[in-house]
């Protein structure tokens, strides 16, 4: 598989989130959330609806500005950076509602991704990625006409093409056929082997527990657990949060 060039080891965690807090009017969406993602690991971010997972993602990539707290990439704060600067630092992100250029062909999409980063000589790697994902026959197909699974693979390829060192995946499996799920799991494993750091939000528990080295669990905006899958499964607080009967500690009455 074209996993890309292996990543050189770095001292600090690839990504460190420290005490992130974000309010939307009266709603405390994220309350003092902290965790780390090391290079060469896959961390899963899970929690019930409304727990703040997507908000955390948006805070990390600067789509939203935190009220307090910081986000560190390789030890350097990236809080005030513009979105394209965040991308240029080697931080890639996919979206819950898959974002590709629908009117362009698969090849053009990849070309744009490369162009955005000023890459040259990307064509070989692009061909390699297409071959790995069994996409080569769709090279000239317009994005609109791909199935959801194929669109997600394309979005992922666009990120992989520019070889980000830190990859943030927002529900990469939503709406995707089981076979494609396996392909995506395989891609993530390869990226981990190549030393990349990966943070993903997913609802498919089987997928998360099988794949992730660590799982961070959020509920009502707070981190309630952080550890390897086996530990998380046995955690009473996590079970309560996922199955209900949780009480919002710091929320006001609704």
């Amino acid at each position, binding site marked *: 598989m074209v996993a890309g060039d292996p990543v050189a080891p770095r001292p600090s965690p690839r990504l460190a989130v420290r005490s992130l807090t974000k309010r939307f009017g009266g709603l405390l969406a994220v309350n003092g959330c902290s965790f780390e993602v090391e290079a060469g690991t896959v961390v899963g971010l899970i929690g*019930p*609806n*409304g727990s703040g997972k997507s908000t955390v993602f948006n805070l990390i990539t600067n789509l939203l500005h935190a009220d307090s707290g910081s986000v560190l990439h390789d030890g350097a704060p990236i809080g005030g950076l513009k979105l394209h600067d965040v991308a240029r630092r080697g931080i890639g992100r996919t979206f819950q509602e898959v974002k590709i250029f629908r009117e362009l062909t698969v090849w053009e999409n990849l070309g744009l991704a490369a162009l955005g980063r000023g890459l040259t000589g990307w064509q070989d790697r692009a061909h390699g990625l297409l071959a790995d994902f069994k996409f080569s026959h769709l090279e000239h197909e317009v994005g609109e006409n791909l*199935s*959801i699974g194929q669109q997600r693979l394309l979005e992922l390829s666009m990120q992989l093409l520019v070889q980000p060192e830190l990859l943030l995946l927002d*529900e990469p499996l*939503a*709406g995707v056929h089981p076979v494609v799920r396996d392909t995506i799991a395989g891609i993530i494993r390869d990226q981990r082997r190549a030393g990349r750091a990966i943070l993903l939000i997913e*609802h*498919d*528990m*089987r*997928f*998360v*527990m*099988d794949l992730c080295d660590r799982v961070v669990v959020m509920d009502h905006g707070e981190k309630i657990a952080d550890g390897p899958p086996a530990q*998380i*499964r046995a955690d009473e607080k*996590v*079970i309560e949060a*996922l*199955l*209900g*009967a949780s*009480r*919002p500690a710091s*929320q006001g*009455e*609704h």
Partner: protein
Amino acid sequence: MLAVEGVSAGYGRLEILHKVSLDVGPGEIVGIIGPNGAGKSTLLKTIFGYLPPFEGSIRFAGDALAGLSPDRVMRQGIGYVAQAGGVFADMSVHENLVLGGYSLGSRRAAAAAIERVYAQFPLFRSRAHQRAGSLSGGEQRALAVARTLVVEPRLIILDEPSAALAPRFIDEIYATLAALNRSGIALLIVEQNVRRILDAAHRVVVLDMGRNAFAGASAELRQSDRIRRLYLGEDAG
């Protein structure tokens, strides 16, 4: 009473539900649970007509519902309480109830029905002219339920009645629902809060990734490990 068979549905090219089936008998409370992304809300929306199914059949008291728009489905005797924002926030409590009786034809015809609802929910009588959006979350949820009662439905469909509510409001809503069920109304409830629905429902249907996973009487499922294993990804499938 409600028979859903082999229903597939979704948005455009995205298929969210795949050949899902369930049924609700008269006077039953049936819960629908499942991990996120299981398609629970989509199923309710398809049954009530907000989404047309790709395939499958939906029958209520023998009449086919598939393909009917929500305003026709509700006239079969089914009420719908949305997940959030179900009330007309900029209208008064009274106007909300008046609209609840829209399908009765004239405001006069609805007046008696509305009186009955006020008797059941005395809280709303004193707040009749208050703007619905200024009610608390729990009260708005109760208003949405009360509104469906104006036309005396035989089945009420609820999408996460406990969502975004503080625990004591959840207690109140479920107490209201229990009372309604005792008066003979069947309930089909999607819930995130598994504990609550296992307490409240007679039977629970579990969806996973858009398909039927398993189902059973709440008493049984409460004892079994299956739900916990599903939600924590321990199931082999």
